[in-house]
């Protein structure tokens, strides 16, 4: 029961971070700042959701898969953030404010 | 351990071309040999099947041992064997002519695997009993056919191939959506389930979707937009396969479907006929205006498909029990004659160096036999006696008269006259020599490459004499052994 509560809170906080990421995506002025929002806020949001769900998991296998998911999402998000930023700098797209 | 004799010819007709295609793809240098051997073997399998069908009227193989509706069965009856035989025989002759027509090594290398895959798909359609399976099959056909369309690699061919691709995929997807609705309503996909079904809104929607999809694939006016360019710009053997065989697959499915799921309303049947009449007129008019020989031939396909749909429509909804025979005869006749015609047109283009109708004349005497072949094929397509086309047209008009549908008779007549008009443009070109420059060379017009199209054209004419046995053959086991 306690576990459920902890999981629920983790998931809820995770959702808040997702919302924050979206808000950042919409509000921040340029692509680099938005990248900050995405990589950090969404990354943490997913991590919280993942841990929350992992707490509720039925088997160790599931937990392992959830961890795997988290690990790769985090890795991919950092890598992709870097790639996009690099691309934006090289293409000059990052200079375009909108 | 494996007793090969327990193989049945239907399975063989499916797997032979498939293995052939794979072998031809892996070994491009030997592709021609593999291809020819496969096509011959396929014809053998079809012959065997025909032999069995004559005795048994229908054969069913539940693949995997799972009976429908869970599994998929292969089923052959007279009609499907006739279509298989058409495919096999026309395919063999086109294959022969491909040996000569495809001079580019690259074209040869890709022609064979694509054509054999196409053959697999066609055989699969004719043996299929499951509508989802038919969907997959028409996709196999579509991809292989598009590959063949763009074999020449010219800009026009690729552009036409792309249009063809769009139409093919869209047609297939409409069909798939229809399959979805059938499943929603019936929870099964085999033909037997369709026959047993009681009409409902979902089934009507399914039928509408599938029919529109098939009409698109078979290029019935006004959904024909993709056909002329695709068929006119492909290399000759590919054109022959596309016009002679590929279009027939969708027609065949339509024929099967419309007997298993009768169109719910007479008006719809009439509408189909009206579209057919429109195709007949529009295709003919375009053929009259076409500047290039192959384009003319392609437009004539549009017109002829219209005729086949008039045949579908001519006896009305109930009368389909009878009128499918006229349609089937016309399908067979068109398949043979049109492939002969495309091959001949290809030969003429090869020898003369162009296929502008206005500039055709006797100055190029070499493709005499090809021109003769073209004329013979045209006779069958116009529907002059005793060709198979004539027999088909005869049974169409006979049925229409009996049902009192004068309008279909008139439409057919107008179409026939127009076909005379547009084909005579070509004949006149073949025979004129007033603008000839230089002396006529002694003709060497008997190239081996003309043999295949000539055989086809002669078959198109002379099979008319065999119409009675053909008719009694295609009635074998139709459908599921009893008339609905």
């Amino acid at each position: 029961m306690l576990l459920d509560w902890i999981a629920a809170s983790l998931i809820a906080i995770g959702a808040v971070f997702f919302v924050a990421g979206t808000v950042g995506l919409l509000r921040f002025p340029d692509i680099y700042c938005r990248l900050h929002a995405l990589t950090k806020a969404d990354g943490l949001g997913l991590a919280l959701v993942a841990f929350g769900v992992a707490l509720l998991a039925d088997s160790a296998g599931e937990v392992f898969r959830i961890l795997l998911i988290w690990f790769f999402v985090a890795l991919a998000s950092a890598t992709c953030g870097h790639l996009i930023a690099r691309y934006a700098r090289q293409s000059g797209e990052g200079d375009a404010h909108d | 351990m494996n007793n090969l004799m327990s193989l049945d010819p239907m399975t063989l007709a499916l797997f032979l071309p498939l293995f052939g295609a794979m072998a031809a793809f892996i070994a491009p240098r030997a592709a021609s040999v593999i291809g020819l051997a496969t096509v011959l073997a396929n014809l053998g399998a079809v012959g065997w099947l025909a032999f069995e069908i004559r005795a048994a009227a229908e054969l069913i193989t539940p693949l995997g041992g799972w009976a429908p509706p869970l599994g998929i069965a292969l089923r052959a009856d007279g009609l499907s064997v006739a279509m298989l035989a058409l495919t096999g025989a026309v395919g063999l002759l086109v294959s022969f002519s491909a040996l000569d027509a495809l001079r580019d090594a690259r074209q040869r290398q890709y022609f064979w695997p694509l054509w054999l895959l196409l053959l697999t798909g066609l055989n699969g359609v004719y043996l299929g009993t499951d509508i989802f399976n038919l969907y997959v099959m028409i996709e196999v056909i579509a991809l292989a056919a598009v590959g063949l369309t763009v074999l020449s690699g010219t800009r026009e061919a690729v552009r036409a191939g792309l249009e063809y691709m769009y139409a093919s995929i869209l047609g297939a997807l409409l069909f798939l959506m229809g399959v979805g609705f059938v499943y929603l309503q019936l929870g099964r996909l085999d033909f037997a389930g369709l026959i047993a079904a009681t009409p409902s809104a979902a089934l009507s929607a399914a039928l509408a979707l599938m029919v529109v999809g098939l009409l698109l694939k078979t290029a019935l006016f006004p959904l024909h937009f993709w056909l002329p360019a695709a068929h006119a710009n492909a290399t000759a053997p590919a054109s022959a396969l596309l016009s002679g065989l590929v279009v027939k697959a969708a027609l065949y499915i339509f024929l099967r479907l419309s007997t298993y799921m009768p169109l719910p309303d007479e008006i719809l049947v009439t509408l189909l006929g009206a579209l057919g009449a429109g195709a007949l007129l529009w295709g003919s008019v375009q053929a009259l205006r076409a500047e290039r020989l192959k384009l003319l031939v392609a437009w004539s396909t549009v017109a002829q498909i219209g005729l086949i749909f008039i045949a579908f429509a001519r006896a009305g909804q109930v009368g389909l029990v009878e009128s499918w025979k006229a349609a089937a005869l016309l399908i067979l006749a068109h398949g043979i004659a049109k492939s002969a015609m495309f091959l001949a047109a290809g030969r003429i283009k090869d020898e003369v160096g162009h296929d502008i109708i206005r500039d055709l004349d006797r100055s190029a005497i070499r493709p005499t036999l090809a021109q003769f072949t073209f004329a013979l094929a045209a006779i069958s397509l116009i529907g002059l006696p005793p060709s198979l086309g004539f027999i088909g047209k005869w049974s169409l008009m006979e049925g229409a008269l009996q049902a009192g549908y004068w309008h279909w008779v008139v439409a057919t007549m107008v179409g026939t006259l127009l076909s005379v008009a547009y084909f005579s443009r070509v004949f006149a070109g073949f025979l004129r020599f007033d603008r000839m420059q230089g002396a006529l060379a002694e003709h060497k017009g008997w190239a081996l490459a003309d043999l295949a199209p000539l055989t086809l054209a002669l078959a198109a004419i002379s099979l008319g004499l065999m119409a009675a046995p053909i008719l009694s053959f295609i009635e074998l086991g139709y459908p599921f052994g009893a008339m609905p």
Partner: protein
Amino acid sequence: MTPDLIYGLTGIAVFAIGLVGALCAQDRLRRVLALKLCSVGAGFILVVAAWREPPASPDPVPHALVITGIVVMVSATAVALALIRRLQTLEAEADE
């Protein structure tokens, strides 16, 4: 109101949008997208046909069919896109 109803209607709408797009779109690439929408729409209908109220497990056959449909569609897309690329190249060469 059940999921199958919602997604069934969704599928139909997607299919219709794709259909209209395939018929009306001018751009070659977009027509491919439209066709893909159609295929997804048809997939929805099949998956919905398989759906059963939760304790019951869904009908596996339509799932298999949709998977087949997806693979078929990706093949068709690849060919269509290859054609588009080739055609554009040929047209560009002709323009030069």
